[in-house]
């Protein structure tokens, strides 16, 4: 044993310090973690910036509504837009066909004004400044033979950490017709071992992967040595696994409960030591209560989606914007990697809305204001506790 050992973590070994200018798809999180986007900016914000690399996200489905598909679609699209390799497993016969329904990032002109605009402008500003620098010096170049000039060109490639996705526009084919996208159907698998093998082999490319965030080109040009740093967008270092409806009844392996658990445990530990994120959705009502609890304990990030009943007058009185809400998202557990401090969220229940029927938006619930004469306090944001209140004359 060496007398002095350098402290290594799974991230410092393989991932050089990622500055936001060079690798927008990963950002630094707290406690030495790195975060990737879930594809839903509101969810990223609630989770503290994004999903930590190495974590397992589990989504408990509602059998009455496919809202978990919204989460999956955005998650997968975000990864594909960032050219991150993806493994997608689904109980349908043709999982690849699903990729054609993934949403495309919204174009800037119909984008809502968010902080992304400011970031885009910031990027453009940097490119302009360098160009200005070059223009001033070029006239001096001829008279300075034998002098070596270094200049840095930042090729702005419009990548952001998190995109707004337009659910009505499908993703361009070139994003998912590549070697880096793999699909597997879980419908006819006799047991879960085949899926486990595919996941393990997929993740093996991320545990040893050494990311190169820049390339150096030497171009000989009349005594000028140009060193160009560029963000090689084809080099992707983080993997994403999306497993839809694990333990769905149409899969043969769905009643092998301990095998399922074993698979999830193995996936969790492999993802933990890889530069990857996995998301699993499962129909919680179809799994026995005991096993459902075991599954929940295995998750680093646990959320559930719930349909909203139509034409519920009580709920309409209680919540503002009831008619725009398509469902609820409950956050049961936030990833706590490398820390013992629990995350206490301001609101654990968010409403799922489709803005302009195109953009997925998560919002805190707002209780309708209560009539002041009754003496009850105003509810601001909070979980939907179903507290009774008189409907106020005011509405936001």
């Amino acid at each position, binding site marked *: 044993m060496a007398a002095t050992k350098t402290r290594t973590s*799974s991230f410092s070994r393989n991932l050089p310090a990622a500055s936001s200018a060079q690798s927008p798809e990963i950002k630094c999180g707290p*406690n030495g973690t790195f975060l990737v986007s879930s594809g839903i900016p509101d969810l990223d914000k609630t989770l503290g910036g994004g999903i930590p690399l190495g974590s397992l996200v589990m989504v408990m489905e509602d059998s009455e509504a496919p809202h978990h598909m919204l989460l999956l679609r955005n998650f997968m699209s975000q990864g594909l837009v960032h050219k991150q390799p993806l493994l997608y497993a689904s109980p349908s016969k043709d999982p690849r066909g699903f990729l054609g329904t993934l949403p495309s990032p919204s174009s800037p002109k119909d984008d809502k004004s968010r902080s992304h605009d400011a970031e885009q402008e910031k990027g453009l500003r940097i490119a302009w400044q360098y160009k200005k620098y070059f223009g001033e010096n070029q006239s001096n170049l001829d008279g300075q033979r034998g002098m070596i000039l270094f200049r840095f060109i930042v090729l702005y490639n419009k990548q952001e950490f998190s995109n707004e996705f337009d659910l009505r526009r499908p993703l361009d084919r070139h994003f998912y017709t590549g070697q880096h996208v793999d699909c597997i159907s879980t419908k006819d698998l006799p047991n879960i071992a085949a899926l486990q093998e595919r996941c393990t082999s997929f993740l093996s490319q991320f545990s040893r992967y050494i990311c190169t965030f820049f390339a150096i080109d030497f171009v000989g040009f009349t005594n000028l040595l140009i060193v160009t740093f560029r963000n090689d967008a084809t080099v992707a270092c983080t993997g994403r696994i999306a497993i839809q409806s694990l333990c769905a009844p149409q899969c043969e392996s769905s009643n092998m409960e*301990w095998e399922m*658990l074993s698979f999830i*445990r193995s996936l969790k530990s492999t993802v933990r030591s890889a530069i990857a994120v996995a998301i699993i959705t499962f129909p919680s009502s179809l799994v026995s209560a005991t096993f459902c*609890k075991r599954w929940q304990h295995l998750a680093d990030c*646990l959320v559930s989606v719930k349909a909203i009943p139509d034409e519920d007058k009580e709920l309409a009185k209680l919540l503002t914007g009831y008619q725009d809400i398509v469902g609820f998202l409950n956050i049961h557990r936030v990833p706590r990697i490398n820390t*013992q401090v629990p995350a206490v969220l301001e609101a654990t229940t968010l409403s799922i809305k489709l803005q302009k029927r195109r953009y997925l938006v998560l919002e805190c619930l707002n209780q309708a204001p209560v009539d002041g004469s009754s003496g009850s306090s105003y509810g601001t944001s909070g979980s939907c506790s179903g507290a009774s209140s008189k409907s106020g004359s005011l509405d936001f």
Partner: protein
Amino acid sequence: MDSRARNLLDEALGLDQLTQLKPPLGGKAVLIEDCVETSGSFVLHQLIKRLLTAVPNSSNVVLFLAFANPFSHYDRILRKLGCNLGAQREKGRFIFVDMLNVECPVGEEGKAGGRSGLFALFANITKVLNALPESNRKCLTIVIDDVSLMEVAAHGSSDHVLDFLHYCHTLTSDYGCSLVTLNHEDIYSSMDGLVFLKQMEYAADVLVKVEPLATGLAADVHGQFDGLQMTVLNRGSLNNRMSNFQFRIKENSVEYFYPGARA
């Protein structure tokens, strides 16, 4: 606040008389129960920190069977609490057994003729124990995080897991070492599962339950702690010592206070 805090958790666990001469947990078996809403792993962290750093030059050794998180996770957390697990590991005071990817299949022992799974794990534990000098064997604390994942590793053979735990209990009576296990109470709500949990509770000398507040989430109170210490007195009568308090977990410490008495 710190000395008072030390008293509340340490009193609950029976750790309040840490000296160089006495073994830290006194050969007891501690069971920590938690749930999805509130994790009890902070108790493990506090315990490890106290065992390894409270008394300088002590001969306490912690054997950690990790089913839930890798070494880097615990290392980072304990660093913030003021305990360098890497250094303790090099000194041989902290033995980390990474069981994250290890399967413990049962039923194969006879076939291959060799030891596998839980048998091999127990053999490793006894090897560690026997490697210690005889006078120091009672200073060993075996920590298991967590037992529900051990069941998954054993592919659902809860009986074998119980047997394994019973064997570990015999070590506490034979050698005087201590055993600390973490399990999730909310998994065992059905009748079949209840038997497993009850057996673990029955065998424990100290039972700790970590739960969320009945009123829900709060930023300044993260949950409540219920402790039960069962000691058999000389004449065979039972002495139960109960503790109940609330806690707030921070990066480098945990605050403990009685309900409503938060400083």
